[in-house]
């Protein structure tokens, strides 16, 4: 009896297995297509109640992914902005180099002290690069300062925001000459003095080096006039200007290989010896 049951079971199993194999083999046949459509509809019906939960779960994971992407993109954006800023600086430096007739030595600012009374900059080139004391330092915006100390590979620069800094300057478009110095009360504000009151100076005019002192070549931009005040008890006016160069963001500069004319210097010495 048990054998008969076994044979029956094996027969049933064989039929089922053959049916299963035939389904596997013919699952892409046209005859099954309608049944497949019905089964997919049934599955969709069964899945519907849970689909909202799944959508919510997926939305959470998508949200996490987008958060991560957002942070990465923010990082990338800030890097690109930084690179763009550097690119603009370098481009303007290159333009300056192409436009300037003076021999220029490109330098990098390796040390900077702008907050103490004795402010200074240190640049990455020295005597071996041909840098000498007294050479003007500029960047694409304008005057930075002047070289005051040199070693073989480094040089120290006196920036315009030092109380002992002086430069002979003129207001662009007029023949008003004076001396630019740092008033010691603002980071980027300079003052031009000894300009006669008879000469009209208006805010917005540029102030350039005059070249009269034989220390700086003429025509280096210094700053833009912001306000003009009459001098108290004197017939000259006090002109305030905003320096073109931002020393705080300065990282590259050029040193002008400018040597004072010795003949002019000798004459000045002779003149001072006379009195």
């Amino acid at each position: 009896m048990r054998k008969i049951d076994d044979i029956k079971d094996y027969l049933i199993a064989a039929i089922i297995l053959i049916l299963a194999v035939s389904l596997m083999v013919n699952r892409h046949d046209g005859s099954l297509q309608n049944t497949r459509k019905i089964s997919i509809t049934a599955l969709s019906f069964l899945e519907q109640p849970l689909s909202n939960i799944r959508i919510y779960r997926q939305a959470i994971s998508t949200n996490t992914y987008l958060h991560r992407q957002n942070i990465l993109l923010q990082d990338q954006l800030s890097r690109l902005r930084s690179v763009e800023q550097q690119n603009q600086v370098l481009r303007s430096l290159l333009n300056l180099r192409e436009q300037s007739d003076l021999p220029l030595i490109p330098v990098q600012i390796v040390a900077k002290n702008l907050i103490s009374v004795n402010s200074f900059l240190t640049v990455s080139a020295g005597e071996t690069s041909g840098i000498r004391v007294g050479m003007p330092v500029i960047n694409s915006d304008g005057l930075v300062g002047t070289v005051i100390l040199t070693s073989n590979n480094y040089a120290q620069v006196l920036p315009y925001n030092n109380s002992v800094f002086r430069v002979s300057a003129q207001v662009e478009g007029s023949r008003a000459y004076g001396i630019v110095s740092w008033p010691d009360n603002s980071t980027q504000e300079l003052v031009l003095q000894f300009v006669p009151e008879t000469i009209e100076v208006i805010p917005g005019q540029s102030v350039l080096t005059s070249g009269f002192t034989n220390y700086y070549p003429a025509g280096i931009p210094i700053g833009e006039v912001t306000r003009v005040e009459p001098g108290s008890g004197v017939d000259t006016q006090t002109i305030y200007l905003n320096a073109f160069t931002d020393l705080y963001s300065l990282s590259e500069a050029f040193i002008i290989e400018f040597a004072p004319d010795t003949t002019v210097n000798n004459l000045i010495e002779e003149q001072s010896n006379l009195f």
Partner: protein
Amino acid sequence: MIRSENIRIFLAGLGVIAVQVMLLRHLQIFGAEPDLILIFLLWLCKSKSRTTVLLYAAGLGLMHDALIDLWGIHMFSKTLMVLILHSYLNRISKNKFIFWQVVLIVFIAAIIHNITFFSVTVYSDLYTSGPQLIMRLLIGSVYSAILGGFLHMVKEDK
């Protein structure tokens, strides 16, 4: 009475398929899912004749296949698994089992089922990645075994 019991089992089988398709199919670990239908068939093997369980295996396997569009694959592997294991499971059905014994039995049954299942799927070109297939085979079997063990514990507590 017999007919009503069969209807009850059949309805329970439909419920198991619904849970498998609606819930367990989405609770995957490393791409592997537990097989509640297999556990249900193993439970049936304890008390039902081989003929009955073979027919349930074929029917439930076919319905499962129809819902996930794997026509004939679950039907084949589940029928073969019942054919191989029914006599042994029926023979030990009088024993009392503890958790790890149930886990081991379900694991062995799941391994037999999954080997058949993946052999057939490889034959029918449904899976092409070998390492992924082996991972699913092992993890799916462990996952089913743990689920079976927990269900056994819940049933015992009642």
